[in-house]
């Protein structure tokens, strides 16, 4: 098991190289000179040139990348923001907690709604409940998240005055963003739970459990759900990964200082070190979540567990 984890962690290295390289290339071909953006509109050509030199922007493309990688590997230094001059790590860590909390909250919403509804839909396939909840789930994925967010604000802040419209400092602040962001995920989880349960519920071992005289709730929760969990974990993991990558739109609507907004702002400001570092960080957390998901698979499914030995 440990060996497996180590192998996976080693495997991250090429992925991270790949990710940084792609981002580096994208940023490189993007028009917009960071030096100019930093210095503003009135800076003289000389100062701009000097700054470019200082930032190494005058170097050839691959040299710049090599320098970046070398620094990152040898000194664990992924640079400082061009814009704020803060260490990139600090920039990211500054926004990560909010994103993480938001992701967790949205995921909770998604799981708490998605799994039960999905299960009931599956066991009552073709019933009214099934149809209605699937329709609602579909509406969930159909609504642009920023629109949903706005409507929530109108309802809960403007009309009812219950919840604050911006910021991210207390549980109260989290409710609306989590709902807006979780709606889509909840819908996805619901659908996946339903189809996975439907698949499992037709299996022979479910019939075996029933033939034992087991009551239906145990059959569903223990025998069926236990086996239906893998694809559910997969989507939950994938979605969580995406959420950690930043929910730019939700963060913007609710003025939450998160990874997504940091990234978008940094791209706009051509703050290359932050973009690089951010994507690196996102890719890393994405990969780690994938690893976690795989380990979870092993936890819920002994067949997979035995493969990792």
């Amino acid at each position: 098991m440990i060996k497996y984890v180590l192998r996976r962690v080693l495997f991250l290295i090429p992925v991270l190289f790949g990710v940084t390289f792609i981002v580096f290339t994208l940023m490189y071909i993007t028009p917009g000179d960071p030096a100019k953006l930093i210095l503003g509109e009135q800076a003289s050509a000389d100062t701009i040139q000097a700054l470019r030199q200082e930032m190494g922007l005058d170097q050839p493309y691959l040299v710049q990348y090599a320098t970046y990688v070398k620094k990152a590997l040898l000194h664990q230094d992924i640079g400082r923001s061009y814009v704020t001059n803060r260490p990139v790590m600090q920039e990211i860590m500054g926004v990560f907690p909010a994103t993480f909390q938001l992701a967790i909250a949205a995921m909770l919403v998604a799981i708490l709604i998605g799994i039960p509804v999905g299960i009931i839909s599956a066991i009552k396939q073709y019933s009214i409940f099934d149809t209605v909840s699937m329709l609602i789930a579909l509406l969930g994925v159909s609504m642009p998240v920023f629109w949903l967010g706005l409507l929530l604000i109108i309802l809960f802040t403007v009309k009812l005055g219950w919840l604050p419209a911006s910021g991210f400092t207390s549980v109260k602040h989290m409710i609306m963003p989590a709902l807006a962001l979780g709606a889509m995920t909840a819908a996805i989880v619901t659908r996946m739970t339903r189809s996975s349960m439907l698949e499992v519920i037709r299996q022979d071992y479910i019939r075996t459990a029933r033939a034992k005289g087991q009551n239906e709730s145990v059959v569903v929760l223990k025998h069926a759900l236990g086996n239906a969990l893998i694809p559910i974990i997969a989507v939950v993991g994938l979605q969580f990964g995406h959420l950690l990558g930043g929910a730019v739109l939700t963060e913007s609507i609710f003025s939450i200082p998160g990874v997504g907004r940091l990234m978008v702002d940094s791209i706009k400001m051509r703050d290359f070190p932050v973009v690089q570092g951010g994507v690196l960080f996102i890719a890393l957390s994405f990969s780690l979540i994938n690893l976690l998901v795989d380990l979870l698979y092993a936890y819920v499914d002994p067949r997979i567990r035995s493969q990792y030995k």
Partner: protein
Amino acid sequence: GCGGGEKPAAKAKDTVIVGTGYDAKTLDPIGTNDVASSNVMLQIYQNLVQVNEKGEIVPQLAESYKKIDDVTYEFKIRKGVKFHNGEELKASDVKFTLERAASPLGAAVGHLFEALDVTSLKVVDDYTIQMKLKYVFPPFVATSLTHTGGSIVNEKAVKAAGKDYGQSPVGTGPFKFVKWTKGDRIELTRYDEFSGQKAAYKNLVIRPIPEVTNRAIELESGGIDVCYEVSTNDLKRLQENKDVKVLRVLDNGTSFMGMNTQKKPFDDVRVRQAISYAIDTPTVVDSVWRGIGKAAAGPVPPNIKYHNSALKPHEYNVEKAKQLLKEAGLPDGFKTSIWTNDRRERIDMATIMQNQLKQVGITAEIKVVEWGAYLEGTARGEQDMFIIGWTASGNDPDISLFAQFHSSKHGAGGNRAFYTNNKVDELLMKGRQMEDSDARKKIYFDLQDTIKADAPWVFLNNQEQVVAVRKNIGGFQPSPLGYHALYNIKFEGQ
């Protein structure tokens, strides 16, 4: 409503929460030149001198200053002023500040100190400093030294913090820095040893809330006390809201649609004039801004010295426009494009102008270009027409005009219309080296006329700073600069 998650004003309020559009970039005065950062630094730092409401230069950290000759200035510094870290303000700090600002480190504000001869900085004694300019540049004191880029920092604190100074600013101002949660809030607290008038309340929180609508909602629901940059959409509602006061001041900015005067067909003055005639500026401005700001008449905004209030917005005259186009050999109009960045109002103005230009046969495609690419592209002259704004950081007309119209400033320097006119160059150079006088006034009136006639720009609007505050907020006056003094706030009825 008590909707806000912030503490409601139950007891005696001692916290002011301000909602702004953007987060600060850094709190190192020379690290940036953006309004959001200045807005915070203004509360933390002080300058040698400042500009009062009447536009006069008054001493702040300097007790007094005098001009020794055309290019030499001497400042007397107030005694006993303490930095937030307890250090006393000395002339050496001022020297350090200015040297740093003019060094490559201060690239972001370097343009302000171009005229300063850094080697000439001379600490006469602990409370006296002298400096020389490289050339005669009378606006120096008014523009450079009053700018937040010229905020006086403490040498020891800066050196101690090193690269991280931007996150641990130390000034002499009315508020001390406490904590900065990026993207969410900057917390300041009253500096009790402040040398001037101490603030009437203890805590100042500045929160970036990028969505304008949200900002207004937060103000209405009491989540914030001060709301910057109220949008046209919210203006009416806020004005009608009894819990809220709306404060407005015309700012030093001009939005305009520039034309690339080196590109065909905009190299022909008749085409440029035709476009000016084709656009009904007041309608554009009115439809988009709906009561905020006013249609601009010329390159010098109303609050700036030597603004010629006799100028009128462009005449709207489709016939004349067509006539001019015909004269220019383009009777059927032409195809072109309008660049703008993603600011809503600019896109909207572009959309209307696009429609108006169609009336004279000009087909303009709107190109919404992301800001970085926009600056890059317009600096290189890739654009045909482009919408942008220019806000002067002081009230001297030189700031409004030089970078925009002097041929040495083509492209990235600020002159994105690539406007070239020897007479204008000459006048600009002359104007910036003169002390205020009628002669200087004449030069700037001349400039305004010439530029308007040459029509490198379609003047769109002079913006307005619209700040809404809760009813109980007193003592607040918005500044045309877009960043406002928050330390004067007093709670009314308390």
